């Protein structure tokens, strides 16, 4: 494993990470961006801990290709596990470098020095030195590796404390500048004119008529990419429909009646993800399940947005992309310009739960700006663009055949996963997978993406490997490339459905054997860390009255089998609809930096996953995506908010474990298991709607 993960390969020196200013402030750079998860706050906290300064002194810059660090994509619950460690090492090195200088000046041993909020003390007595006074005489261009000396767990003071999010106050006051709020001198407004469906292309466009439209500053036509530019934003919005009346689009030639059945029937090549032990065919006393989920939308509240400006052959972009350096490389490649002539600056967007249209809207805005000779342009997607033109989370089918041994323990799991691709991110070449790249007059046809192998965290097969002691396991996946819709990563990727499959099957087997479902799992577990987690949630949820009180359900997973552990109990009410009343989650995220930050992620994850489990599904009319507004893609509402109790098992000696996606799979499975407790029915297709419950009751 890389000893210096995250941005370290490109940023080996202390100066790459920290600038110590004489005014008592510290500028810090990180390679991961804030997408609503609070990562910048956690990084500031780690740095303040190692530097022995008040976190308020640190200003963090993240996701800026001008002077930032390339930490790769901010995704996969990886930021703490990779960049977090690098921040800690770099901050500790900055401290040690400054203390070495101070020890020279004071002619003392570095071990006699300590720091309180930047002031340097010798044998606990004040000196006239501080970081702020000595930094100017230090060359920080020195390797982190030489000076790093992170504190031992017992030496940490800020660790686990819930310092407040550094960006949230201004967001609550309404003064934070989101990407949508950027205003450059002379900036114009643009919107994209969309085809009726994903494979439609322009056949005819009446440009003469369009040019007579009031308030149209400019029409952009590049193949089937069509956009309008106006001085006023509301005019750009209005012009979209007016222009589309003069556009004739081709109709799709491929009609897929039932996308999930199409996925189920795929003939795509089988990829072996895991082959452990020996798999027999399903025996008559075995048990099988096949679960599926329909396609989902990211459904951020604020639509995707980008601001772009060409200055001659150089390009500047403001974006809420998760991967600014990949965007920089991708744009340079599409426009055939030098990478050094492209700068991509991250600004906060509306909530990001994976690969939504943030990258797509960048190319939209850049194509429009290209027509403007240096005038900047802001392009915001419409609500319909956001829901139906962002990549979708793919529909998916997971099947498990389980054989049981004579002692009623699980002998084997034979797991088959079928899914469209979960990862279609642009990485730098050929503008791969950007929406407008498919519509431009010279459309780019990137190859099908390779589904991430299971030993690298997996994608469709993420979390398909059960953590229970099962001697024989086979995991196979088939990636379905021949559906027309654009799909990419959404929170958890395949984990959502795979955890649903495993954890509902565990309950089904326990029920068949008339054993308590938690007891049944514990019989298949030997890892003390997992056992402690599960026993804790059993206690705090008062699991023993799971049948006499409101029906309860349990589920467990460890995200990616390498991130945070999550054990969950939920309590539901089954009336006209299913309502989640209570959720108890116990989380083991290794060393906790910001306890409230972890809880916030888990609470939010549970509420969002409840929405995905009970409400959300994309339907299709032929090729047309039905999700065009909040009426036909509803999400959870305030009145459906459950009570949630999150407990953390803090392990200061252990590495950080990412939590952002830990709650999703367990929430879905626990809700389904609670319904099974209540009504002895198993809903195998998500979302669990009233209609599906009624049809499974055959009434």
């Amino acid at each position, binding site marked *: 494993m890389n000893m210096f993960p995250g941005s370290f390969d490109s940023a080996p020196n202390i100066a790459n990470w920290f600038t110590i200013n004489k005014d008592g402030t510290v500028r810090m750079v990180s390679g991961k961006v804030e997408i609503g998860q*609070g990562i910048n706050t956690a990084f500031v906290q780690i740095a303040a801990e190692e530097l022995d300064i008040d976190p308020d002194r640190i200003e963090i810059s993240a996701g800026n290709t001008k002077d930032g660090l390339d930490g790769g994509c901010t995704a996969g619950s990886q930021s703490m596990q990779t960049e977090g460690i690098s921040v800690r090492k770099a901050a500790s090195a900055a401290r040690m470098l400054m203390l070495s200088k101070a020890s020279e000046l004071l002619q003392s041993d570095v071990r006699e020095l300590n720091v309180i909020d930047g002031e340097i003390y010798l044998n606990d007595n004040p000196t006239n030195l501080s970081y702020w006074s000595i930094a100017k005489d230090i060359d920080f261009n020195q390797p982190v590796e030489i000076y790093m000396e992170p504190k031992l767990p017992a030496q940490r003071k800020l660790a686990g404390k819930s310092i407040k999010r550094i960006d949230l106050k201004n967001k609550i006051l309404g003064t934070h500048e989101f990407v949508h709020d950027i205003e450059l001198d002379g900036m114009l407004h643009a919107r994209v004119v969309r085809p009726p469906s994903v494979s439609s292309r322009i056949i005819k466009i009446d440009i003469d008529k369009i040019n007579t439209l009031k308030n149209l500053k400019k029409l952009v036509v590049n193949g089937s990419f069509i956009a309008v530019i106006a001085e006023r934003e*509301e005019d750009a919005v209005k012009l979209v429909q007016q222009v589309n009346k003069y556009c004739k689009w081709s109709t799709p030639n491929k009609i897929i009646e039932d996308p999930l059945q199409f996925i189920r029937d795929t003939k795509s090549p089988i990829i072996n993800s895991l082959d452990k032990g020996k798999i027999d065919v399903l025996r008559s006393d075995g048990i099988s399940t096949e679960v599926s989920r329909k396609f989902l939308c990211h459904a951020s509240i604020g639509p995707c947005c980008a601001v772009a400006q060409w200055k001659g052959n150089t390009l500047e972009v403001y974006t809420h992309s998760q991967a600014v350096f990949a965007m920089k490389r991708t744009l340079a490649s599409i426009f055939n310009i030098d990478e050094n002539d492209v700068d991509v600056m991250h600004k906060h967007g509306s909530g990001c739960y994976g690969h939504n249209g943030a990258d797509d809207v960048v190319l939209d805005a850049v194509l429009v700006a290209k027509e403007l000779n240096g005038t900047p342009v802001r392009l915001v997607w419409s609500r319909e663009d956001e829901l139906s033109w962002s990549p979708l989370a793919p529909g998916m089918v997971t099947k498990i055949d389980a054989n049981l041994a004579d002692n009623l323990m699980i002998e084997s799991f034979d797991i088959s996963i079928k899914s469209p691709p979960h990862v279609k991110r642009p990485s730098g070449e050929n503008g791969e997978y950007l929406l407008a790249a498919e519509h431009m007059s010279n459309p780019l046809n990137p190859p099908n993406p390779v589904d991430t192998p299971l030993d690298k965290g997996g994608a469709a097969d993420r979390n398909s490997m059960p953590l229970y002691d099962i001697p024989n396991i086979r995991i196979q996946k088939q990636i379905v490339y021949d559906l027309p819709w654009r799909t990419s990563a959404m929170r958890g990727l395949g984990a959502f459905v795979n955890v649903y499959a495993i954890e509902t099957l565990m309950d089904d087997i326990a029920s068949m054997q008339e054993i308590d479902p938690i007891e049944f799992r514990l019989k298949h577990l030997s890892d003390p860390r997992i056992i402690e987690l599960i026993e804790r949630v059993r206690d705090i949820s008062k699991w023993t009255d799971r049948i006499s009180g409101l029906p309860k359900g349990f589920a467990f997973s460890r995200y990616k089998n390498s991130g945070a552990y999550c054990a969950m109990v939920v309590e539901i009410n089954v009336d006209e609809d299913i309502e989640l009343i209570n959720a108890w989650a116990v989380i083991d995220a290794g060393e906790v930096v910001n306890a409230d930050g972890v809880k916030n992620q888990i609470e939010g994850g549970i509420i969002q996953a409840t929405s995905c489990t009970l409400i959300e599904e994309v339907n299709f009319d032929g090729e047309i995506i039905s999700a065009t507004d909040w009426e036909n893609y509803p999400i959870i509402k305030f009145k459906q908010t459950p009570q949630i109790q999150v407990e953390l098992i803090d392990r200061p000696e252990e590495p950080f474990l990412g939590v952002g996606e830990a709650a999703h799979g367990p929430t879905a499975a626990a809700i389904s298991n609670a319904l099974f407790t209540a009504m002895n029915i198993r809903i195998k297709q998500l979302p669990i709607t009233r209609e599906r419950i009624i049809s499974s009751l055959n009434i």
Partner: protein
Amino acid sequence: MANKYSLTVNGQKHEIESDPDTPLLYILRNDLKLKGTKFGCGGGVCGACTVIMDGLAIFSCDTPIWSIDDKKIETIEGISKDGIHPLQELLIDEQAGQCGYCLSGIIMKVKAITDDDPTKSVDDIANELDRNLCRCGSQLRILNAVKKYLDGKS
């Protein structure tokens, strides 16, 4: 055709020249540079654009300027201009938010409801927030802050 409209925003009077059907949202954000009010859906369903007009919460994204001539508008910038509004203080205490994009609309809606009737319960407010969406899942924390706000009022 551009007409002249007069509106008072956060106590300050503005004369605006605009097409009559221009949504208030764009006047606030682009003419008056009050960017705390957000675009979300354009159809009055998600609540991100909520502002208060003469005491009532409205969706600024589908309220045309002609309908608010001579009306008093309050936006997120107005409720904290003399310091932080108590509801905002409580939201900060509860760390009620993740991306924060929906918050300004939710704050304005809760303020309008509770200014009008301080005896409302948190369940009443959860019901009335039917057209204010949050995708990050901050509802529980927001409602906890609202509950403390109501407790402080009663």
